[in-house]
Structures are given as C-alpha cells and as structure tokens.
C-alpha cells in the first residue's frame, strides 16, 4: 500500500488547504484517476501526502484502513475522509463534486451519443473492456478472499452468498444475512476469527504479503 518514499525533505505535514486548492487537486485526480483501486490510492497519496503534505503517511494509512468499514468506492471514500479531516462537511461536498464531475460528464456524453456508440470500433473497444471486467471481477474475488481469515464459517458464508445470488436473491439480503451470521457467531462463540496470515492457512500460501 505504501507508495514510494517522499523524495527529499517534504514540507511539514498538517498544512490545511483552502477549498480552491482542494478542488484543484481533487479535480486533477478526477480527470486522471483511471481505473480506480490501488493505482488511484497511490495517486491520491502522491498528491495529498508526498507533494502537498496535507497529512502524514500514517494518517493516510489510517484513513484507508478505516474506509474498509464503509460501503462504496474506496477511492471516493478515502478522498471524502481526507477532505472531511481537512475542511469539514464543506470539504466533503466540494471534494466529491470536484472528483466526480469529469466522469459524470463523460458518461453523459457517451450515453447521449448513441450514433457514436454504434461505431464498430467503439463497440469493439467496449466489448474488450467487458471481457476485461470479467477478469478484473475474478481478481477482486481473489484479493478480497485472500485478506479474509481462514475460517470455516467465512467459507460457508461466501459459498452461501454465491449460491443465493445465482439463485436470484437480492444482494441486499445476502449482505444483511452475511453480517447477521457474523454477529450471531460472535455472540455465541465470543472468539475472534484467526487473523489473516496466522492460524490455519494452507501451507505454501503467503497470506501475510502486504497489499499492493
């Protein structure tokens, strides 16, 4: 997760930007932050920590760790938490607008341009990306699964969610059921899951490898 170390002496962390600076930086990330995920997290860190020193690496790591508890897109959540810490509710609202408007407009333009959308080369490109999405989804399953503790209940929940979803249950219920199963298990057993990487991981598996 840690990006490259800051080159040379950085300004003292903790300098608060004003809203205009926030819009500039978040707008830049909104325009250039293709693909989402860890690549964009590294981009955000480079902007917010390395080159502008609005916070320290530790504070940034803490925010990323915290957003695991929130639903939604990780990158937007991390940026919202940073904006909130720096500038309060106004920072969240303005920051979210600044980062989202480029994608919003591009999507609207694509949706409106139906004639362009039927161009063979664009249909082909989108088909390629659709195939890529299937591959990416598979890696998300692997990545999320790797970070989970090795425990029978969690395997059972994942398998149950898989079957229920294919059978047509609304995913909202699946998520609620999974959370309820976890809560019930904790109330009954009163013992935490083994931490990922320790305990009953299968031999040869490197579960303790750091995230990218």
């Amino acid at each position, binding site marked *: 997760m840690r990006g490259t170390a800051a080159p040379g002496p950085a300004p003292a962390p903790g300098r608060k930007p004003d809203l205009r600076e926030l819009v500039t930086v978040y707008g830049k990330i909104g325009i250039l932050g293709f*693909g*989402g995920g860890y*690549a964009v997290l590294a981009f955000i860190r480079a902007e917010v920590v390395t080159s502008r020193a609005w916070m320290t690496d530790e504070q940034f790591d803490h925010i990323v760790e915290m*957003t*695991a*508890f929130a*639903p*939604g*897109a990780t*990158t*937007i*959540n991390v940026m*919202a*938490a940073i904006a909130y810490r720096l500038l309060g509710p106004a920072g*969240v609202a303005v920051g*979210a607008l600044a*980062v*989202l408007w480029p*994608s*919003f407009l591009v*999507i609207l333009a694509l*949706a*409106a341009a139906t004639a362009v959308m039927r161009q*063979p*080369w664009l249909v082909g*490109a*989108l088909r*390629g990306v*659709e*195939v*890529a*999405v*299937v*591959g*990416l*989804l598979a*890696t*998300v*399953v*692997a*990545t*999320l*699964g790797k970070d989970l503790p090795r425990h029978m*209940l*969690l395997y059972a929940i*994942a*398998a149950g*969610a898989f079957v229920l*979803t*294919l059978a047509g249950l609304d995913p909202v219920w*699946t*998520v609620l059921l*999974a959370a309820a199963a*976890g*809560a019930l*298990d*904790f109330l009954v057993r009163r013992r*935490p*899951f083994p931490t990922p990487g320790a305990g009953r991981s299968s031999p040869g598996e490197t579960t303790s490898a750091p995230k*990218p």
Partner: protein
Amino acid sequence: MAVLAALFFGFALVGLFGFGGGFGMIPLMKTLALSHHWLSIAAFDEAIAMGQVTPGPVAISATFIGERAAGVPGALVATVAVFLPSLVIVVLLTHWYAHLRRRPGTQHVLHATLAGIVGLIGAVTVSIGRGVIRDAGELALAALIALLVWRWRLPYWGVILGAGVVGVVLLRPS
C-alpha cells in the same frame, strides 16, 4: 417522478450495501437495473464497461443507468444517491472509528460481511461472464487479464487500455 424516486432509493441501497470497494456495488447495481427493466442485460454489461473507461470509480456506472432510465435528471439522481450513503458513513466513521475499532465484534461482523461480498462478486463474475464471453478466445483474454493483475500487479488503467485496443482489433463487429 416515480422513476426518479425508484432511482434514488434503489441506488441509495446500492451505496449502502456495496461493501468491499467499488466492485462490491456491481452485483447490487445489476439486480436493481434489471429488476426495474431500466436496461437489458447486454446494456448493463456495457454500462459497467463504460464505468471502467471513464476516470473515477466504477460506481459511476450508476450515472449511465440513471440516464437510460430517466434522462439527465435520472443520471443526476442516481449519481447522488449511489455516493451519498458512503460519504455520510465515512464522516460518521471519522468520529467513531477509534471507538468502533475497540469493540471486538466489529471486525468479526466486517469479515463475515466481506465473506458474503466475496460470494456475491463470485456469482456476478459467473453471471456477467456467461453473457459477455462468447468463445474460447475471449475466455483466454479474461483469464490472461486476471493473471496479469493478480500475479504481476498490472495497473487497472493499463488493463482497460490494453483490453480496449484488443477489442478494437479483434472484437469489432464487421
């Protein structure tokens, strides 16, 4: 008006329950969009692809679905609704995270939820894959992409760009 309300509440639920990062929202968006007949299955796959080719998070596919359901107002409502819950939760977490983290059950429930999300995304990988992948060559492309990202940490933007180019050359309809 009824469509806008359905968009708002539907996408707010997507935003509220889509744990595990942006990809965790895809199963919820799929159920929502298809059950309301806002999009065909093929158009949904296309919407997710468009969420990938634009900068910004995957959840921006909500914008496209909203536009198809109710024009520009629909796009606005869907976009606001899908991001609003997580923004509110992040603000609340900022205040309560230290407290929440000390409660032993919290991590437990999160892990169980994420295990459910793993199953969800697995299922949606299968169901989207069944619609999108038509032959062995495309299956090989998807597997290659998974391998490149998983083993060699190829960044997502590189994957999307590469897959788009391969699509233009090889998957273009004649």
